[in-house]
């Protein structure tokens, strides 16, 4: 279960190619690719296992001027997508 205190970490074996307005992740094991838009790729860039989703939300809210709760909701939704697609390290959530 993803919560605001979760500290997810991205899988290090995924290959990432940055684009101007997002990025592409390639999972060599499953032979699947994922495209992330600019918001999702920004969230992706924070997921180092050390920072909680709540802390990410506060930081992004201060930069964007959006409401922290709204930002947190978007982050949880996005990270849930990452987890459901096996893009995060097991047990790091």
């Amino acid at each position: 279960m993803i919560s605001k205190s979760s500290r997810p970490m991205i899988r290090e074996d995924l290959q990432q190619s940055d684009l101007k307005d997002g990025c592409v992740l390639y999972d060599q094991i499953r032979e699947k690719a994922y495209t992330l838009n600019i918001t999702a790729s920004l969230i992706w860039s924070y997921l180092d296992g050390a920072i909680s989703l709540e802390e990410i939300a506060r930081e992004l809210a201060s930069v964007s001027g959006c409401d922290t709760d709204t930002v947190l909701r978007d982050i949880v939704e996005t990270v849930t997508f990452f987890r459901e697609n096996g893009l995060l390290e097991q047990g790091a959530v």
Partner: protein
Amino acid sequence: MFRRYCQIHSFRFSISTHCKQLEPGLALLYPALSTTSRKYCAEWSIESKYSGKTGAHAYVCYENGGLIYDTQIVDDALDYLEWRITTRILQELSHFVQIHAAGLVSGGKALLLVGPPGSGKSSLAVCLLRQGWKCLSDEVILIDSASGTAWPFLRSFRVDSKAMEAFPEFFVKQSGPAYCDSKGKIRLDPSLVLRDWVAQPSQPRWIIFPGYQPGHRGELEPLGETEAFHLMMSQAINLAEHGKRGMDTLISLVRRFQCFRLNTGDLHTATSLLEGLTEQMQKSIYRSGQTSGGGFIGGGVPTTVAGGRHE
């Protein structure tokens, strides 16, 4: 007996029939792949058989002498045969990254119309051929991963019969019955539109995603790299075989070339918008002093097309 020897890259095959009635339809399948060499490594044929018992005709398809399909509907038989041959050709050419796209070439640069079957690629290809563009394919483009060059996959066009109403002159030129596939699309020999229609392998310059929107005034909407990549990936045929290298090929294409969604409700507007791209390129060449030879080399990329801005 009708027999045609064909070659695409190193793959050689033959198609044949003893049935006079089937000759025009068979001749329409791959007119531009015809070769004089009689060597081949795969053979397809189609025959008409009459059953004395039922009094019905059957059309029977053979692959290397073995029966693979039979039907009482001639369009179905030709359709199946074409599908079988195309599938085999694509297997033989699997070293290319294959994309569902039409490819048209003007001034040595290719415009790729990327989209699923039925998105209007072939109709737009006919329009651009009429304007003097040459053609790589109306359905599948072969991309060389190493160079990014688009290679031709030549076959007869399959044009929506409704769209063909815009080109009545080609109905007249195409002798014999109007050969349709099982979805009602008309097979059209592109040489009827432009005699010398085959393009040489070319570097892409524009990637267009056609989106038919009835009543739309028409625009080329610039697309970001991520969305363009996503759309390209959804139309890739054999990406799984190429893995990361295939992904990198598509990434390179969307990074290097202008990508647009073509929103339009009619073919005439769409053609004008696409023609506008080459005019922009020619102006850029002129401005950067490259008035002859060599083609366009970066530097003067047009930033505005049909009111849109491509960053």
